[in-house]
């Protein structure tokens, strides 16, 4: 069995697991990081979003093998940061969370977007979150939340 090494939420880890396992399952079942959710299992809904080297990916169609040598950030890792606090506050102010199943993924996608584009337009936010389905909100409150986060977190991204 190959040993696969990566950095998970700031810690170097090595696992000896089937390399074809979905990163999603490795995070949830092996590392018990259940903030990453499974909504569809086929890269449509984004509930399983994590950051690989700072960019959002769907961990449900990301094989563990491809994590080798990467920096992986899950919502649990992001939650320890100032940026997360800003995003969380902005989601609160704008009412961006309802049932919550898409919320960690939304926040990961927002983090990915803001880290590449700290001052996105509404349209850019819509594109940035277009891989994260939400059935509760109709998206507008989430779009506003990302916009508000960009303002409140000026200079952080």
């Amino acid at each position, binding site marked *: 069995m190959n040993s696969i090494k990566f950095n998970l939420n700031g810690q170097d880890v090595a696992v000896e697991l089937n390399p074809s396992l979905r990163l999603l399952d490795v995070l949830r079942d092996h590392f018990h990081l259940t903030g990453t959710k499974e909504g569809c299992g086929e890269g449509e809904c984004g509930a399983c979003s994590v950051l690989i080297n700072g960019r959002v990916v769907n961990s449900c169609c990301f*094989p563990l093998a491809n994590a080798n040598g990467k920096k992986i950030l899950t919502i649990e890792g992001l939650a320890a940061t100032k940026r997360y606090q800003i995003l969380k506050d902005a989601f609160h102010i704008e009412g961006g969370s309802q049932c919550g199943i898409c919320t960690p993924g939304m926040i990961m996608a927002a983090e990915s977007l803001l880290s590449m584009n700290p001052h996105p337009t509404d349209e850019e936010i819509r594109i940035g979150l277009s891989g994260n389905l939400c059935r509760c909100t109709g998206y507008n409150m989430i779009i506003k939340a990302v916009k508000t986060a960009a303002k409140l977190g000026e200079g952080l991204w």
Partner: protein
Amino acid sequence: MVRHIIPNNLNEALNFLNEGPFHIMAGGTDLMIQKRSTAGTPPKFAKDVLYIANLAELNYIKKDEAHRCIRIGAAAKLEDIYNHVDTPALLKDIIREIGSPGIRHSATLGGNIANASPAGDSLVALYLFDAEIVLLSVDGERIVPIKKFITGVRRIDLRSNELIKEIVIPIIPITAYKWYKVGGRRADSISKVSFAGVYLSNFGLVADIRFAFGSVSATVARSIELENSLKNRPIEQIIGDLPRILEEADKMISPIDDQRSNKIYRRKVAGNIMERFIKNIA
């Protein structure tokens, strides 16, 4: 027991491949879903798996001035291709509408080609530009034009000891281009019909014109014959030739009914798009 190989470099990968056969896994955004099993269990692979996503030798995008082309490594991510200054604008427009950011950050152009889906959007541009696929094995390189490389629905001309090394996209002079993606929604959708068209006009004369449809045939539909019949003609004449063009374009495609749309719609929309494209030549 299926083996999983994560090669350290390209040579190692080729040596493993030589002992093939392997499933070659790039970003995984198609293959992981096609082979998926119950949540929490590994995907079901019938063959050994070779992981190439992290091979640095396959991850590049560069302009080759000497050969007037762009060379894109098979493992280059769609998002990187989109962001690259030398990527043709048409291809950028196409990539921007493939999947979502989460998909584009791991999906590769090589994977999109190897997957050979009739609805593969990037393929439409590659057909249009007469892209070439550079295949690599321990025996050396083999270069195959895209339209030869893709032999049918999810069928490609890849030998068991080969992998896709790079995609060569010729740079051609263009006056204007048009891309239509008709999907179920405005993001994150599989095309019902797609169309790419380019032309080069000089002083009212069309010097070059190319167009291709996706999702309405087993593979991308392009007719060199029809294109040639329009070259070196005045724009007004081409527009005047619209009824024949539409009739011929209609023969290019053979759409089907499926869970996403139906053939009547696909045929009608393909015709509408073609009409709009021709009428807008200037």
